[in-house]
Structure formats: C-alpha cells, structure tokens
C-alpha cells in the first residue's frame, strides 16, 4: 500500500514530493535557524529600542538627533544592503580585522546577520514605541503627577506599560516583517529555511520544490505568529476594545497584517 502510494506520487505529482519528504528534516532544521535568528534579533533589538524610544519621545536635542539619525538610516534603507555592509564591508578596515572581535564574531555570517537584524528591528521598534509613548493619554500622566510620581517612575509605572500594550498590534507586523527579512541571511551563506530550499534546488537541478516547500513553511510560521498575537491582543488590550472597535472603522490603530 505504502509503496503503491509512493509510486502514485512519483508518477502523478507535479512536485517531487518523495524528495521533499526525504529532505524534510533539513527543512525543519532550516526553519529552526530562521526562528532562532528572528527571535534573538527581536529580543536584542527590542531591548535596545526601549531607551531609544524614550529618547525619541523626549525633548533633549543632543540625544534626540543621533537617535533620529540612526532610526532614519536603518528605516530608510534595505536590510539586504545593511547586512552586506556589515558582513562584506567591515573586512575592508585593517583595524577591525586586527581586533579580538574579528575572528569569533565579525567574520562570521551568523553574527553579522544577527547584528544587522537587531539594529534594523531596533530602529523600527523604537519609532513604533515612540508613537505609542507620545500618544499616552494626558489624563493618565496628570494623574501620575498628582500622585507625586517622579519622571522615572511615571515612565516605568504608567507610560511604558500602557505604551507596550497599545504598540502590540503594530509590533505584530514588525515581528512578521522581521521573519520575512530574515531570508536575507540565506544570501550570506546561512542555511536558514530559504537557504535549505536553495540548496535542494541547486543540488537536484529543480525549479520549484525547494522554494515551494520553504514558502509553505514560512506561511505556516506567519499564520502561527499572527494567531499568537491575536490571542495576546485579546488578553492585553481588552480594556481598549470598545475604543479600538470604533477606531478600526477608520483603519487606524489596528494591525494592518491580519491573516
């Protein structure tokens, strides 16, 4: 029965499903690399973005200008070029090649991708958080002031917790964009999900199988992430729902990426 099924697939399926099944463990490994890369970048970038967002929301021009320049540069240019700049570009400088960081970190594709992705997502997340910090309702801040909370305490106890929640829908988009962006890793020799697809196609001279398998797995991951965020939003944004429902009519405020 099993053999007959395999023969049927080999004869009739437009894709070489048997070959995909044989190499499926590689695809799972690639998916794991993609997820790891995305997740670590999001953690590092997210952590970096919090102080950057606070600076951008504040009014100190000496701090604001360099952070603005950083976010403008990273948001205005392609991730591919940023990654190339770090991976291929840094080796141009003699003094970088002589530092202790060169061998174990800066000459490794994995770390270069991680650095580029982290900085990229930090820039996007910082601007997104800034928007959400700035739009904190004035009444909440006034109430905190009336209670005698210091600036730092206001930020920590009142503004940030509410800003994080309100940033959640937009952040879910950023997470998916980062996952999509992580395919850039395959262009600098990393065997991520797309890297495995390219490897399979290159090895067996195929045109569809590797890419289609990778595409399906990416789609699956995206669906799971957006489901996860929807659940999270229903949990953390419940107190905002009546307003959000009104807002969503004008297409503002809610995540544009819903599938």
């Amino acid at each position, binding site marked *: 029965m099993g053999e007959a099924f395999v023969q049927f697939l080999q004869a009739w399926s437009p894709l070489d499903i048997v070959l995909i099944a044989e190499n499926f463990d590689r695809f799972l490994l690639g998916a794991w690399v993609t997820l790891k890369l995305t997740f670590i970048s999001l953690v590092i970038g997210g952590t970096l973005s919090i102080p950057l967002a606070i600076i951008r929301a504040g009014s100190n021009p000496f701090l604001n200008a360099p952070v603005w320049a950083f976010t403008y540069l990273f948001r205005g*240019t*392609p991730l591919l070029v940023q990654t190339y700049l770090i991976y*291929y570009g840094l080796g141009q400088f003699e003094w970088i090649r002589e530092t202790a960081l060169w061998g174990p970190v800066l000459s490794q594709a994995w770390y270069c991708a991680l650095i580029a992705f982290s900085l990229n997502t930090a820039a996007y997340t910082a601007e997104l958080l800034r928007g959400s910090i700035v739009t904190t309702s004035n009444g909440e801040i006034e109430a905190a002031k009336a209670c005698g909370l210091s600036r730092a305490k206001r930020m920590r106890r009142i503004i940030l917790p509410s800003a994080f929640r309100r940033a959640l829908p937009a952040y879910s988009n950023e997470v998916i964009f980062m996952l999509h962006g992580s395919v850039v890793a395959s262009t600098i020799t990393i065997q991520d999900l797309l890297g495995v697809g390219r490897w399979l196609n290159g090895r067996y001279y195929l*045109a569809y199988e590797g890419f289609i398998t990778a595409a399906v797995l990416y*789609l699956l991951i995206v669906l799971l992430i957006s489901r996860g965020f929807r659940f999270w939003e229903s949990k953390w944004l419940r107190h905002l729902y009546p307003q959000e429902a009104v807002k969503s009519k*004008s297409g503002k405020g809610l995540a*544009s*990426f819903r599938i």
Partner: protein
Amino acid sequence: MNLIIEYQGQLLSGTWVTVQLAILSLVIAVIFGLLGAWAKLSKNLLAKKAAAGYTTVVRGVPDLVLILLVFYGGQQFVNQLGTLTGLWDYVEISQFVAGVGTIGVVFGGYMTETFRGAILAIPRGQIEAGIACGMNRLTIFRRIIWPQMVRYALPGFSNNWLVQIKATALVSVVGLQDVVYNGFVAGRSTRQLFTFMFAVLMIYLLLTAISDFGLRQLDRKYSKGITRSDDG
C-alpha cells in the same frame, strides 16, 4: 570617495534600474490592489475567497522566496506550458521581468488591504446619496469614492511604497544589475566593499527621502479643507 567617482557610471546605471523596477512594480501593485479591493468588497463569494487567498499567500511568504520561485520556476513553468500547448517556443524570463512582476504582485496584496480600508472609511450614506441622485456605478466611483479613497489610502500607500523601494534590493540576488548588484561588484573588484555598500545605502536613503517628501506634498494637497484632530 575617488573610487565612488570613478565608478559613478555603474552606480548611476544601477540606480536607474532600481528606480525603473520600483516604479513599474508600483503600477502593477496599484492595479492588483484596486482589483483585490474590488474583489474583497464584492458580493461574489468566489471573488472574495480568491482575493483572501491572494493576500494571505502574498503577505505571508517572504518576497525573496517568491522572487526566486518566479525567476527559476516561472521560466520552467512557462516553457512547459508552451511545449504542452504548442503555442509558443522557448521563452526566457529576464531578471527584470521576474522582479517587476513579483514585487508588483506581492505589494498588490498590501495595496489591496490599504485600498479596502480606504473604501470602507467612506461613509455609506454618501454612496447611497449617489444612488439616490441616479448616478451609475462608474460615476459613483469616479466622483464619490475615488477622491476620498485617495485621501484615506495615502498614509498606507506611502508606507507600502517606502517598503517597496527597499524590497527592490532583493532582485539583485537573482543577478539583476541594480544598484546593489553594481555596487557589490565594484566594491569587490576594488576591495572596498564598505565604501561601496555605504554609497548604495546613501542612494536608497536619498530615494526614500525624496519619496517621503513628495508623498507629504501629495497628502497636503488631498487633505485640503480637512481639519486634522491630531498629528496622527
């Protein structure tokens, strides 16, 4: 800096390819976006389902995966179809066509959502008023929906366009001689990759800054006479 000047021809021709790629794919994206929004809002269940499937796949799969699939797979598919039907001989899909087509169709998915939201934002009563005045559907679209849709869609459209310009960089992976590819080749042959990649970065920054400025002007034009309650 001297090297950049020496290689400015390559960088400029690459930039021109990137600009063409971005603009042509934008045209396709707008067409697909309008069709998609129309399908999503229509009463036809099949059109609705098809549009939902389209936006899900196109926004769920990374653009580079689709570019590679279209460039390598599309070629084979078109030729197999040609052999099967006997209608055409060997066809070659160039990197440029694959890039324009894929990026256009992918961002058509994002445009669909933007346009759909913009059409939904138009108060229903205005469309009913148009019907009551005896306008036909085309007139309603032209006189009532379109002018307001543009205004509502502009923020989302701007955002999509800025993402799209940056997405064009990915076509260099299949060997299209755009600004990234040319910059990379020049950088490798002179062993000055940082310099050249930084120059490419600046070119993209310039392109996005110009677009940003232009779209702001457009936004101001279409928002004339409208009071903004906040800075959005």
